[in-house]
């Protein structure tokens, strides 16, 4: 009876979603296609959509030193820096977030819930308001032009939220599981490592994904703190194309594709855990 209206409803909804998706994805896709074009094709009229003669020249140029001609930054270096910063701070955030999250979820101490709430409030501060003080602070301790400085900074910014995610998920894990492990002969650390953390994997991966993506794509702090070319990150590399006197879109496209790749991979592989985490909570055993 109401089968048809429902189908129509979903059809309409999907259509709207599709339009929004195309609207958002089209420029990205166009840039992706542009990365396989030549400078000449990009400048030609009428504008071509599909590359006439797909070429990897733009990618080669980014990665081979002979093509750099002083205009392009050292992209392998930028990518290396970004990976170093994003991965190191993700490791720090997940490690300390797990310890702190466990404490918030399991131990009793005065002001616990207040502090846990405070962690969320700390996210309400606009990053821009912290730019200047952070710069002062970092130059005072001599880390203003250093990837290490960014690792510490991103970790500090990311830790509250990661702690919060992990603490909430650890709270869902029945206390009896740990008590049972302790009765079975486990120390607190063993019960955490062998029972709690395997069950909290979805939360840990969610926190790690969240932080990695944020750290990988952070621009504002990286751009004011990092000065020397050899310390810069991919986001600064992307922005630097704007300053070049000729806008060579095939390079922008190639660089943007490379920068987007890790994020896509993270979601591609992380999604599995993401859904598993959701399902585990939904089906009460």
């Amino acid at each position: 009876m109401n089968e048809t209206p429902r189908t129509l409803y979903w059809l309409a909804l999907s259509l709207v979603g599709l339009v929004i998706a195309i609207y958002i994805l089209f420029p990205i896709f166009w840039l992706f296609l542009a990365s396989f074009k030549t400078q000449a094709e990009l400048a030609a009229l009428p504008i071509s959509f599909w590359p006439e003669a797909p070429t990897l020249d733009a990618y080669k140029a980014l990665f081979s030193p002979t093509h750099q001609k002083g205009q392009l930054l050292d992209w392998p270096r930028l990518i290396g820096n970004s990976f170093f910063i994003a991965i190191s701070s993700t490791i720090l955030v997940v490690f300390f977030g797990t310890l702190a999250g466990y404490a918030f979820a399991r131990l009793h101490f005065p002001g616990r819930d207040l502090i846990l709430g405070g962690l969320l409030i700390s996210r309400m501060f606009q990053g821009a308001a912290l730019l200047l003080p952070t710069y002062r602070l970092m130059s005072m301790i001599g880390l203003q032009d250093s990837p290490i400085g960014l690792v510490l900074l991103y970790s500090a910014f990311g830790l509250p939220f990661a702690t919060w995610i992990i603490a909430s998920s650890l709270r869902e894990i029945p206390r009896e599981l740990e008590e049972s492990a302790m009765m079975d002969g486990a120390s607190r650390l063993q019960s955490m490592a062998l029972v709690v953390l395997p069950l909290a994997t979805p939360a840990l991966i969610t926190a790690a994904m969240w932080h990695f993506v944020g750290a990988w794509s952070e621009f504002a702090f990286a751009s004011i703190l990092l000065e020397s070319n050899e310390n810069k990150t991919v986001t600064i590399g992307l922005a630097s194309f704007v300053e070049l006197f000729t806008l060579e879109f095939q390079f922008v496209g190639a660089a943007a594709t490379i920068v987007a790749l890790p994020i896509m991979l993270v979601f591609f592989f992380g999604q599995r855990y993401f859904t598993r985490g959701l399902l585990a909570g939904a089906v009460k055993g």
Partner: protein
Amino acid sequence: MGSVALRNIRKSYGAVEVLHGIDLDIADGEFTVLVGPSGCGKSTLLRSIAGLETISNGEIALDGAVINKLQPKERNIAMVFQNYALYPHMNVAKNMAFSLRLAKQPKDEIDRKVRDAAEILDLAPLLDRYPRQLSGGQRQRVAMGRAIVRDPEVFLFDEPLSNLDAKLRVQMRAEIKELHQRLKTTTIYVTHDQIEAMTMADKIVVMRGGHVEQIGSPLELYDRPASVFVAGFIGSPAMNFLPAAATGGTLVTKSSVSVGKAPAGVDEGRSVIAGFRPEDLRLADSGMPAKVVVVEPTGAETQLMLRMADGDIVFTTRDRISVGPGDTVHLQIEPGKLHCFDAETEAAIRQDAAGQ
């Protein structure tokens, strides 16, 4: 060996004391049930024995050695939790082997013990399954298997059957009892269900408000309850109570109904609570008048809810009786089955029970 001695166990959360000095001796191999309404402290006491709660005062001894300062893992006590607490990411075999692996026992030894326990509990075909793939009863058995493989001095059970449906509960009750008869391991079992306590226990500890109300075998508690609370808690349907006073050698209620002969030791005029079990009543030509409110035949016996001037009472009989709602019947209490409690303290007035 696994004898447990509790001496003056006290436990406070801040200013609130939840255990007010518990003394209890449990012999090796004994099946002891802690029973009481929720909040009576029975689970806290059990968790204190396990080492999951620290006690504020007192002494817990296992085979004479004081263990209250030891970590749970150092006590050689196994516990089955109310929600089973199976490790969801491990299959049945791994769940059962967990403690042995932590103890770094050799692999073939672990395999043998797990197989043996699985055999006892009919879990052999399920060893590769994960907890989520098991039924409630199977999970319950895995939880027990996890305790058995360790061959501990003492088993603790914390309301293990409360998550099962009624039929399965009866079945598991018998399985746990059979298991105990086979392994003869000292067992302390917490429940709020007096039927479980009655059917399983060698010794029942009735708790209320952080105190031990009475300790005894199931039938001792049933036949000689020490207080109104125990009398009302043990037995189903519950014991009937009527306020009464000793007048001229008989117990008479407020509305001048004679309940029965005043037991020795009840002085003239003393206010008491008269108690009698539903099955200790019989129909008579004279006696306490009561109006039938509801008749509930169950086949084996028939249960009647009756209204007296002094309150409602329940009467059960195995006879086929032909009375209906609105009829008035007369009841007498079987000789020697009248319990008498002090109206103030609610404690049993003992001399009579001994005399009759």
